[in-house]
């Protein structure tokens, strides 16, 4: 074997050895990627700390150091342990156990060295950890017509994030239902409502926003909003609806009901006594 051949042979062997190692590493990497696909989605009951980047970005930014956990004064935050359903080492909390107390100085965000918890969050009311949703309308006491109101009362943004909307109670026919409505433009996802819900299993739960919230069609426009924005109707007014009412009457759909026009002549007097008096006079 010539010297050149020997060198080629050596090169060939070195190449094959390196290729073998590279293939091994690549195989492991592919396994890891596949494995991560299965663990990636955050369980619905695990909520990230305030200011957390969107989940995909968060997992590229968080180094799993636990400094946010350490600076949480209420021991709300936990680091996922190996074997938990949450990706190992990342911070989360379970609202039903300990909700976020929404500290004004947001110590967890201040503690984060990487920016996985975004430093631009300075007002805790702007946090969007998740979104509360009244998921069980069958068992919610307020839906049953009782005045529980606990979720509404404990909400740190009472009347903004949760309001009570009065509705007619069709069961009794005479009472009012006070329905808790969550407003996504104010709810921070702190979880105090879920924590406080008096039922053995909370009827109101904080969920990841994309699970809790629907989305309107992109082409949808709410006519009444557009009308207000434009300061007037944007479409040609419909042809006036003709009601089959007695002459001289009209019907107001916005509360007043049946209205008698002033100048209308009717055979009946406005005062019912007049009719009686008339009858008595005729009897005489």
């Amino acid at each position: 074997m010539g010297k050149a051949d020997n060198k080629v042979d050596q090169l060939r062997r070195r190449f094959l050895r390196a290729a073998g190692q590279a293939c091994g590493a690549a195989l492991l990497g592919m396994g890891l990627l596949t494995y991560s696909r299965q663990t990636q989605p955050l369980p619905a009951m695990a909520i990230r700390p305030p200011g957390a980047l969107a989940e995909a970005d968060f997992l590229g930014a968080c180094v799993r150091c636990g400094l946010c956990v350490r600076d949480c004064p209420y021991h709300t935050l936990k680091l996922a342990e190996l074997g938990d359903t949450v990706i190992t080492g990342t911070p989360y909390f379970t609202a039903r156990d300990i909700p976020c107390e929404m500290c004004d100085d947001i110590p967890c965000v201040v503690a984060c060295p990487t920016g996985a918890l975004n430093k631009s969050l300075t007002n805790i009311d702007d946090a969007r950890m998740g979104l509360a949703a009244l998921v069980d309308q069958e068992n919610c006491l307020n839906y049953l017509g009782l005045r529980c109101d606990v979720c509404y009362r404990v909400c740190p943004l009472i009347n903004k994030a949760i309001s009570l909307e009065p509705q007619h109670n069709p069961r009794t026919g005479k009472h009012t239902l006070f329905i808790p409505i969550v407003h996504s433009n104010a709810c921070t996802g702190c979880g105090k409502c879920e924590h406080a819900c008096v039922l053995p299993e909370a009827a109101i739960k904080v969920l990841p926003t994309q699970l809790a919230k629907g989305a309107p069609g992109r082409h949808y426009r709410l006519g009444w909003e557009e009308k207000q924005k434009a300061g007037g109707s944007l479409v040609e007014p419909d042809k006036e609806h003709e009601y089959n009412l007695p002459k001289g009457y009209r019907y107001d759909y916005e509360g007043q009901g049946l209205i008698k026009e002033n100048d209308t002549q009717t055979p009946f007097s406005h005062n019912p006594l007049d009719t009686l008096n008339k009858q008595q006079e005729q009897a005489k």
Partner: protein
Amino acid sequence: MTALLRPGADAIELKGWWRAHQWLLLRRLVQLGILALFLSGPWFGVWIIKGNIASSLTLEVLPLSDPYLLTQSLFAGHWPETTIVIGALIIAAFYFLVGGRVYCGWICLVNPITDLAAWLRQRLNIKDGARLPRQSRYWLLAMTLITAGISGSLLWELVNPVTILYRSLIFGMGMAGIVVVTLFLFDLLLAPRGWCSHLCPMGAFYSLLARYTPLRISAVKRESCNDCMDCYAVCPEPQVIPPALKGAVQGIGPVITGINCTNCARCIDVCSKDVFRFTTRFYKPTKTSSNTFKQSEVLS
């Protein structure tokens, strides 16, 4: 044969047990001491270091962060805050000075586990096992960074036993015991010194910081070497020894310059001839040493 089953026996006899284990004990003390600094907060409410080795805050002022984790995060496409960059630069500078893989020998808690496995292998005279290529770790290092880029997340941290073990000891074990047992059995039965010296991408990353490290071990009295092989038997990276110990003939200096030397100093402990000691990498043997004479002896 008994010499290799119990490396360091000569040193113990000559120098006494304590002196033949002084660096090992110091190393274990440092490993446990740093863990204790992390644990004093959660256990006793005395907060000295907060966080874990991934990123920490010492005495509420000094940020220290792992440059390997920061690198993964950069590959994942995240633009980091300055805090972690400063922390990682401090740590990188430190390991540049003392040797990157000092992290492995003196800080990492996987090290006592794999050391125990290696020690037990010798005691039980287990000879079988896969000889993995030592370069594998660099391929794995590349893999961890590439997959971080593909997935946009710190993918390796799903399984990285180094960070998982350290974090679990501080924040709650979960199923991390499995990691310990797996690594121990892997090193004991499947591949000798398999994890730390062949596969661990974290160690590979740190080795890259050691290219110009000033603090190095040298075979300053290599002429007194009696070829007992004890240093090879205890060294986790024995490939770094021969150039320094036996390189006199080829004119290679006595400084161990291999980037994978962990500066664990176990070779200093077990050498009954006191061949090794800590020096700088610029160490030059003095002319008065009997190098030339010993060289001819080696040649003969």
